[in-house]
């Protein structure tokens, strides 16, 4: 059974610390080249491999990540 996931990032609240990036088992996320209203390079997804494990959301100091998951 496999899972397919999707994250939604509150980009205006993201501070671009990058702690989540190293903990993603599928290398789905990276810091953007663009910045948000506060000048931080916010988090974005770079591919479709997300499995909805929520590791990124669990280490996020600012709680900006919501995780959705479905079986497929």
């Amino acid at each position, binding site marked *: 059974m496999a899972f397919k996931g999707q994250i939604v990032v509150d980009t205006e609240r993201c501070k671009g610390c990058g702690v989540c990036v190293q903990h993603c088992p599928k290398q789905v996320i990276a810091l953007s080249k663009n910045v948000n209203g506060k000048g931080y390079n916010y988090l974005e997804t770079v591919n479709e491999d997300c499995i909805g494990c929520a590791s990124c959301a669990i*280490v996020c100091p600012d709680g900006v990540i*919501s995780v959705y998951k479905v079986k497929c």
Partner: protein
Amino acid sequence: MANDIVKPENLVYSRTKVLTDATMHYCPGCGHGTTHRIVAEVIEELGIQGTTVGVAPVGCSVLAYNYFDVDFQEAAHGRAPALATAIKRLNPDLNVFTYQGDGDLAAIGTAETVHAANRGENITMVFVNNGIYGMTGGQMAPTTLVGMKSATTPYGRCVERNGYPLRITEMLATLPGTYYVTRQSVHTPAAVRKAKAAIKQAFLNQQNKKGLSFVEIVSNCNSGWKMTPVQANKWMEENMFPNYPIGDIKVDGKIAEGIDINRLVVDHPLSVVNK
């Protein structure tokens, strides 16, 4: 495909409602944010939002009352355990927790901390230890490691001049009044899960009227340590953890298995850091 997944019924994780919508003022990557979030998640899971009172300290987390959607009191510097004692004794049915940093709990508030623990007050204490005075600009704290550079120890902390790092968590574990004493961290998903379980246990102990529960969170201070958040977490693993070993120290009122409290308190093995 994206629209098929992002639906309310597929939501597995989102920011807890016990945190307010205010953006936290902490530096990017700071462990305070994660610790706030797991404390709030525990309050939500236990369903005690309406009966919880927090006590905020002075330090980086001085504005904690802005971020939790529960009742809060602001204590004088270091006096959070004394204020929590008063709240708990006047309203024994409330769930009272203090949230303090190392400058508040282990420096100016040592007396209140030690006496609250020795009296065995039925409260929960969350202690965030980052080995430095973060808010005032990175000065040496009692918990600063030997050899660690700070604004007031530019050549590294020296034992002859500055004394030894204070391991207050081990010290409190030796007191008969403490029921649960543990040290955790919040730098990886696994560590966050363990820390959350420890905080949940600390709140449950309070509900079961067991006595004082003390949870230390070893955290980073990337601004004070002059590192990126990712580097700071790595440095913390390499240098903070040997001096502040992670794990339960006292469980159910007894020193945990495999913990030699004499080794930790009396002999005080030091690992000197070079930064």
